[in-house]
């Protein structure tokens, strides 16, 4: 690239893949994406089948497939997956139910902001794992504790992000509503809330991703099911194929929820341009 870079005074050719922000053909885009996937898989296969890494540390692809098959056959993989999905969704939904309305109010009412923001800014820098001992003391080691970990991991982030969405709603949009006869309550319910919805949906999608990243932390202590538990348990026996399987399943579920969120946004908010 540097070799054929133009010198001062020469005309700059604005085509080709090394031009910033330049579109490339769709086929090229997909070819490169697929190629990356195949290369990573190839590297994995080379390292394992080539005997460069012991299977205890990195299992070869076929062993992961076998582990998946066995997990499905005896029902354990499904059980772990269901258990994790229940924890993730319970924590995420509970956090959202509180964070969405509170965030919208926080972004548009200075009094709510004054009340909530200092605590939020303190809490959101705390590693959730630091809270686990307290959570165990307070609510024990059942599923509630795991849900609480997901809740704490997502709630404060959601609150800040959604408050920001609410703060960015144009003042003119609020003002015009008053001149059309809306009172303060109607301005909130009929204007502020709907105006926040696209931003809320986008940030729920982003924080859903973060909720998944807390799964292993949530299932670190006293779990007896779940994908995080499955991974931690496999580590003790050096079953690297099960660890890899757990990672793949979490990745796939994450991808799936992301698509569901995108679809929901398109269906629920057809009026707002999507990314």
């Amino acid at each position, binding site marked *: 690239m540097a070799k054929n870079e133009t010198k001062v005074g020469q005309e700059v050719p604005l085509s080709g893949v090394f031009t910033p922000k330049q579109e490339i053909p769709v086929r090229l885009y997909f070819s490169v994406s697929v190629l990356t996937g195949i290369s990573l898989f190839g590297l994995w296969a080379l390292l394992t089948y080539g005997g460069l890494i012991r299977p205890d540390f990195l299992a070869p692809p076929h062993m992961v497939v076998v582990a998946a098959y066995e997990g499905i056959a005896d029902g354990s993989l499904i059980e772990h997956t269901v258990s994790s999905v229940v924890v993730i969704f319970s924590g995420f939904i509970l956090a959202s139910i509180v964070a969405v309305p509170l965030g919208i109010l926080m972004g548009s009412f200075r009094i709510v902001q004054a009340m909530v923001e200092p605590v939020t800014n303190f809490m959101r820098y705390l590693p959730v794992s630091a809270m686990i001992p307290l959570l165990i003391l307070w609510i024990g080691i059942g599923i509630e504790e795991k849900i609480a970990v997901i809740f704490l991991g997502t709630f404060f982030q959601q609150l800040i992000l959604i408050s920001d969405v609410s703060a960015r709603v144009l003042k003119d949009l609020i003002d015009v509503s008053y*001149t059309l*006869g809306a009172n303060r309550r109607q301005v909130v319910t009929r204007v502020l809330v709907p105006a926040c919805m696209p931003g809320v949906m986008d940030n729920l999608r982003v924080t859903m991703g973060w909720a998944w990243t807390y799964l292993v932390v949530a299932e670190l202590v006293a779990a007896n099911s779940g994908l995080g538990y499955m991974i931690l348990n496999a580590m003790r026996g050096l079953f690297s194929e099960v660890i890899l399987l757990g990672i793949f399943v979490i990745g796939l579920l994450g991808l799936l929820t992301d698509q569901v969120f995108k679809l929901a946004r398109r269906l629920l908010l057809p*009026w707002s*341009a999507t990314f």
Partner: protein
Amino acid sequence: MSILEIKDVTVRFETKNGQLTALEDISLAIADREFSVIVGPSGCGKSTLLRLVAGLQPATSGVALLEGRPIRGPSVERGMVFQSYTLFPWLTVEKNVQFGPTLKGMPSAERDAIAKKFLGQVGLSGFEKAYPEQLSGGMRQRVALARALANDPKILLMDEPFGALDSQTRSLMQELLVGIWERAHKTVLFITHDIEEAIFLADHVYVMSARPGRIKKQVQITIPRPRTLEVLTSPEFVAFKRDILDVMYEESVRAASVRPI
């Protein structure tokens, strides 16, 4: 008879750099069913004046009266069209226009008739089910105008509503507005920094001074109606323009030497 009276109004803002006087001792009387335009250099406080009438900006001292009653806050009596696009993006064009009537609890058949009528007036029949996102800037401002009119306000406030549009679209919008006004004769208070726009639209032009804003000159525009864009080149139009330009030029020079907000 004047419908709107502004009496000795002063508006001051507290800023980081101290106090800022946006309006000082402004007095103004707007006649019923007239088209009044306030023109002034940027930053002269003309938008503050309009927001004051809308009830969105309290006065530091003095009072604004609509039909003799002091204005204390925004209400349906005073509809407003903003320079920025303020359509509700989640509502269709039709539902946007019906926003005010819906709040009043008007039955849906009546609401539909109102949307039909005013969308017809602004030339947007057939766009009822479109979303704002799908419209051009000029079309959005036409819907905003229809939405304000649909609420049947006593006075229509317009804050540089065509300021963000390209000049061809702006001319068409001015002609459309003049046409609507000549049929409806609603009281309009219109703000702009564009002198031609002011003369073309107005019965009365009020020229505002640079900050702190005061009314520096009042000109009655006697160009006969109905007006079309052709009057822009007529001798009387040019005479009005020269007259106002002289005052404005002085003020723009002054405005340029005043520190911005």
